[in-house]
């Protein structure tokens, strides 16, 4: 394959994909840490930014923000409901609170506050949700936020970003500060490969084609973007030319990118580390079925809870890995004819 097929990936990353090497530990970082790093810079630039924690600041890394900006950091203890409604109150005064916790607590424990006190009045609160999907591998089901993206997507006025890697996480965190209104940001607990850099053209609501292709398109978000790239590379060896789209913004969905991919490649596979009800797969299917119902398949967490285990092993067992994406792409290409 030629390097030109890829966009925004460094030559080293492309080489790694093409040689089918696994990513070494040094190339990887949990995106929660990238969030925490981004907040240190954002805190310098924007004095309105404050961070609200719920006793997981040391896990996510926002304790560094607390050290650097003690006046603008508030730890609410293990009280996510209070934190979310307080964030709403702070936003009414012009501050930009980043309410930080794990996905399960942000989207379920405190959902009433998130819906009624943040999204209904459209307040300028950023919800920073780590431990998305089954990325908290070893922690097990109670800490695996596999429903949050679907839940938040169903709420009016919501904007949801699930960035693929550390660099795009930083860009998403900064873009959220410049966006007026609630933004839900989704991060991983487990390390994901650093595949992009800060030159990536990040824009809320604009999906990015990161690999060209004409036989089918994989539309992925968060940690499955890299799995999609690996799958596309495997398929290339079998003569399949597959497009990969980093659909970092789940809502509003870039419908134009979806429909362009549908008409140009004729088959779509979605890939998300989230339940396959109501998330990226559903969003893409909704657009396709109303406009251009081409062959499509969804990769996501089926109607099941996962379990404790190493992250990559869980992706394999629960049908989310590059191997599963590859099989799904073969199937939709087959259905085209």
């Amino acid at each position: 394959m030629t390097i030109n097929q890829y966009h925004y990936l460094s030559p080293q990353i492309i080489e790694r994909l093409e040689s089918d090497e696994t990513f070494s530990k040094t190339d990887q970082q949990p995106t929660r840490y990238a969030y925490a790093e981004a907040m240190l810079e954002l805190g310098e630039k924007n004095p309105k930014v404050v961070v609200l924690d719920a006793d997981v600041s040391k896990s996510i890394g926002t304790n560094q923000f607390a050290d650097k900006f003690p006046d603008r950091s508030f730890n609410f203890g293990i009280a996510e409901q209070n934190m979310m409604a307080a964030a709403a109150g702070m936003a009414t005064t012009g501050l930009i609170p980043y309410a930080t916790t794990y996905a399960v607590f942000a989207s379920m424990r405190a959902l009433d506050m998130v819906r009624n006190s943040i999204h209904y009045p459209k307040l300028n609160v950023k919800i920073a949700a780590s431990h998305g999907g089954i990325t908290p591998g070893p922690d097990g089901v109670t800490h695996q936020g596999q429903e949050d993206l679907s839940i938040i997507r169903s709420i009016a006025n919501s904007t949801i970003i699930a960035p693929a890697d550390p660099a795009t996480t930083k860009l998403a965190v900064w873009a959220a500060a410049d966006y007026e209104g609630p933004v839900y940001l989704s991060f991983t607990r487990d390390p994901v490969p650093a595949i992009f850099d800060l030159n990536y053209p990040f824009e809320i609501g604009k999906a990015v084609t990161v690999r060209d292709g004409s036989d089918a398109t994989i539309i992925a978000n968060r940690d499955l973007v890299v799995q999609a790239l690996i799958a596309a590379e495997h398929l290339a060896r079998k003569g399949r030319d597959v497009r990969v789209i980093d659909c970092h913004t789940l809502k509003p969905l870039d419908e134009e990118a979806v429909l362009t991919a549908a008409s140009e490649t004729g088959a779509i596979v979605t890939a998300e580390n989230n339940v396959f009800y109501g998330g990226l797969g559903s969003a893409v299917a909704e657009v396709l079925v109303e406009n251009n119902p081409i062959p499509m398949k969804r990769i996501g967490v089926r109607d099941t809870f996962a379990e404790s285990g190493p992250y990559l092993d869980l992706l394999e067992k629960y049908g989310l890995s590059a191997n599963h994406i590859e099989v799904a792409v073969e199937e939709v290409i087959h259905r085209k004819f």
Partner: protein
Amino acid sequence: MSSEPMSVEELEKMAVIIRCDIIDMICTAAAGHPGGSLSATDVVTALYFRVMRIDPENPDWPDRDRFILSKGHACPVWYAALAERGYYDKSHLKTLRQMGSILQGHPDMNKTPGIDMTAGSLGHGLSAGLGMALSAKLQKKDYHVFVVIGDGESQEGSIWEAAMAAPNFKLDNLTAILDYNHLQNDYSVDDIMPIDPVADKWQAFGWNVIDIDGHDMAQVVQALEEAKSHQGAPTIIVANTVKGKGVSYMENVCEWHGKAPCQEEADQAFKELRR
């Protein structure tokens, strides 16, 4: 900017007008929550016509005192007070709960001038007020935040999350007022899930507690002014009130939590209130 603060006698007269507005708007809407609106009327009247630093011409004034009705279903009292205070024309009161109205069934900060926080789902308002009070401390502003909570609402766990947090953050610019009218939707608070000894609970959480007769306007005013100047800790005023206060057939009757009076009942209420 704002009119002269009212005397206790003037406030008492205004409370009668507001109670009549409440009955009138709920009767017209044929839906709403009269009982808890009437129990909170004296507190809300004292806040809007004497205690709070506000400017009805400039409802988003950054330095204004804030008010949140955390028991949002009692919004007729809030809507009436805002109308009487000049935030919008009184004619809007007749549109309560109608399509296209600025007065929603529960308070919407983006539709109604003067509403500082959307409310309706119970157990949010004290936390939201806490957030505003934290902002004031951070931004070195001297505004005060008042939040009315309900006794039934105090069964929500999130109330106690906020109760624990406010003294820890030393928010002496935050005052909660408990509208202790002893009734909730189904039955009495004591029958369902008692909250007593409620003053002791708040004291144990580190709050400055003031216990008053929530219908004695002199006590209401004194408590609110004391709370506003109290230093070092947030204050809660336990306002002992009567659900449906001022309307004989509504007083202490649980069914009037969320029932609208018919025109005949409303007329009787006006007579009793204006006596």
